[in-house]
């Protein structure tokens, strides 16, 4: 299964939803879309606007691949559960967000070279990237999140010392 999610920003992300719908007609994988505030009505794909967080986590866990905007929640959850993720950032020029900070996030993550996160900036290259990622047999293993452990330790120590 491929789970596509675009976050809860009030502007929709039709560019991604439409492309996923188009790709769905050519792939053997089931595609499920959480379309948020997007307007595009998918023809080939099961979709809903939103589900509660715990259900979204279940969709992520059962997916072979997740495709999303550069959303922090999705990036964190894919890291935690070791699910391959293709990031396709929202762009200001298409009225998908107020700024281009999602491109900054995508570039910053790309520069780190994580083994389970891929970035696509042009929707015409999305399908080729999906095929490439799904063909790669090695499933990433969930890794200990050192940043998370360090943040928890710092905050906890600060509270204890108050």
């Amino acid at each position, binding site marked *: 299964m491929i789970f596509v999610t675009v976050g809860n920003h009030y502007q929709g992300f039709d560019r991604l939803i439409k492309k996923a719908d188009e790709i769905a007609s050519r792939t053997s994988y089931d595609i499920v879309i959480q379309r948020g505030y997007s307007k595009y009505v998918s023809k080939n794909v099961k979709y809903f606007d939103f589900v509660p*967080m715990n259900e*979204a986590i279940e969709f992520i866990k059962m997916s072979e691949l997740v495709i999303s905007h550069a959303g922090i*929640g999705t990036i964190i959850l894919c890291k935690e559960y070791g699910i391959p993720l293709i990031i396709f950032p929202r762009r200001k020029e298409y009225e998908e967000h107020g700024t281009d900070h*999602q491109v900054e996030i995508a570039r910053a*993550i790309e520069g780190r070279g994580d083994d389970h996160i891929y970035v696509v900036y042009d929707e015409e290259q999305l399908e080729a990237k999906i095929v490439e990622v799904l063909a790669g047999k090695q499933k990433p293993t969930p890794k200990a999140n050192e940043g998370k452990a360090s943040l928890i330790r*710092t*905050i906890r120590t600060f509270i204890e010392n108050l």
Partner: protein
Amino acid sequence: MKKAKKIGLICSAGGHYTEMLQLWQAFEGYPKFLLTYQEVTTMDRVGTHYLENIFRSPIAFIIGVVKIFLILLKEKPHILFSTGSEIAAPAFYFGKFIFRTKLIYLECSAQVYRPSLTGKCVYPIADLFLVQWEPLLKRYGPKAKYVGGLI
């Protein structure tokens, strides 16, 4: 025996909410409450105060700010912690100047090079101010700290 410190956890929906849940362990053992926006995605937690998004309309903003005040008045937290975004600003200012709480703010990992509006707004009054990307330190004063990021 030390008095139990009560912690108010405040965040908007989406990535801010996921970040909050990721850090839950930091608050284990302390009395606490969560204050967030009422969205389909956040409705799965018991013992939470829900607000309508304060940016939805001017009326929602006024009602939201009053509700935040009343929730703080009822809960009487000693510490406020937020992962953003704008919902933190009124809570932190009430906390600092009326309820005398300690304030911990974690800038969202979406802010790589540029501070968020909420971050800039609460930086001057925060007691602990954390960012999740090292390059962002340059944009804040000496109080800002980087110890790692969630993503």
